[in-house]
């Protein structure tokens, strides 16, 4: 038996730690809390770098969204959904329940679908975030988007961005997903219009290419 210990924090070869230092939390906020409790705690913890904490009022950080860098001020308590929608104006990501139950806010973080409403934006620093706005390349729709349209895998469309993000994760992980795999991996996305059967069709067709 052997150790199964991949590096979950690597972002295309850059370890998250370096990435964080290099591009992530800048020292803009440093002056603000240099003398504060945060720093005392950090020093006590043997951490020298202020980039290892974020004060209540937040700090400027780099988010890497849809292959673009965004410099944005983030408070620790802000969720990724909030920051995407309110600060980056990426309103394609919806929130339907604010509790990770409906999946409307699904984005990919390093290719894994997550509920951006239940994910702190600061935790996304240094990671690759893909939102619905980043699925098509230039003017070309992704095959999944095409299949969603061709198969009418949408009605009111409010759940659609989340549904597509989960579907994208499916076809990235599994080139030939079967019905059961698709259903299981879409089980975090609610569609009140009841469009699921056509979503399944669209995913199967998109996976086939």
């Amino acid at each position, binding site marked *: *038996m*052997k*150790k*199964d*210990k991949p*590096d*979950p*924090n690597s972002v295309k070869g850059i370890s*998250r*730690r370096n990435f*964080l230092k290099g591009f992530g939390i800048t020292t803009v906020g440093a002056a603000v809390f240099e003398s504060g*409790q*945060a720093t005392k*705690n*950090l020093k*006590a*913890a*043997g*951490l020298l770098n202020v980039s*290892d*904490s*974020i*004060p*209540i*009022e937040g700090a400027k950080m780099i988010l890497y969204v849809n292959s673009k860098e965004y410099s944005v001020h983030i*408070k*620790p*308590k802000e*969720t990724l959904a909030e920051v995407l929608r309110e600060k980056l104006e990426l309103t394609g990501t919806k929130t339907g329940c*604010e*509790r*990770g*139950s409906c*999946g409307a806010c*699904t984005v990919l*973080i390093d290719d*894994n*679908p*997550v*509920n951006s409403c*239940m*994910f*702190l934006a*600061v*935790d996304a620093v240094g990671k690759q975030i893909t939102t619905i706005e980043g699925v098509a390349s230039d003017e070309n729709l992704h095959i999944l988007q095409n299949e969603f349209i061709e198969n009418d895998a949408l009605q009111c469309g409010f759940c659609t961005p989340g549904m597509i993000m*989960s579907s994208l*994760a499916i076809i990235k992980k599994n080139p030939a997903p079967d019905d059961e795999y698709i*259903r*299981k*991996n879409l*089980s*975090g996305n609610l569609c009140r219009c009841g469009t699921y059967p056509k979503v399944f069709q669209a995913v199967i067709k998109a996976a086939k290419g």
Partner: protein
Amino acid sequence: MIKDFEYYLPKATEQALTLFSKNSAYKAGGIDLLDLLKENIVSYDSIINLSGIDSLDFIDTEIDLKIGAGVSIQKIADSQPIQKYCPALSESASEIATPHIRNIATLGGNLCQKPRCWYFRSKDFDCSRKGGKVCFAIDGENKYHSIYGNQDGCAFVNPSGMATVLTALNARLQILTKKEIKTINLRDFYYLPAEKLTCEHKLNDGEILLSVTVEKENLLRKNYYCKIKEKQSSDWPIAEICIIGGINSLGNFENVSIVLGSAAPIPWRMIKEEKKLEGLQATTKYIGNVVESSFSDANPLRDNAYKVKLFRTLLYRGLCSIAGLESER
């Protein structure tokens, strides 16, 4: 609305330990924590993020099965050694919540999450577990509540799918305190309401759950796991069972451990039944006898008596499965 907090990103558990101060909380995946913060059930001055600590994120199968507390539920579900040596654990992991949550939620978070009782989770109810005077569930809407351990002022069910299986596997927890790394048996980890009403487990404030170990001899035994949900897409179980055990060369049950989930405030061991089964011939008739006599000590509430019937089915099916028999129920 979440109250503002400071955020720390330690790289090592020792740093995290030091960073913990009076009104701090650790966060791993943060699913449970964010839920509580958003509902204003809790608020903290500082939150210490453990998810950047690499040493919490490992699955080690060298001698025993050792899983870091920071391993995501999805990683447990996908781990091939776990699928091979401990199918109940991967099955349970793969059925927790949604794929989205499994990607983020961790083993430690799953084991230590607060109750999912709807009274506890709502700011509108000042319930006993939140320090209030009454348990609203006992005389209220208790369809999803406990049938055991519910007579001491709180009727929630332990929500951890991982705990059900790991309790059956007699797992041990390694916990980092300021003084040492201590080991607690998972079977001793959780408090019944009679022991403590506002605290669910023995992980004290500021301590860090490092890992969970299942000893080698508890792997490679027969596994049965079943989770019943009302709705198949993302739902909390209404009943859950894990049976780990064996059949000896004489065809008798040997070393069986049975744990129920969604039955009590703690993973509920069926110790009496385990004893009855020891050395018992594994036939449907004997299994039936054990099942018939079980659950007489349950204390169903007004709306959850159905759980007894449900658990009987699961117990019967599980024991048949361990014995390699076809279930007639």
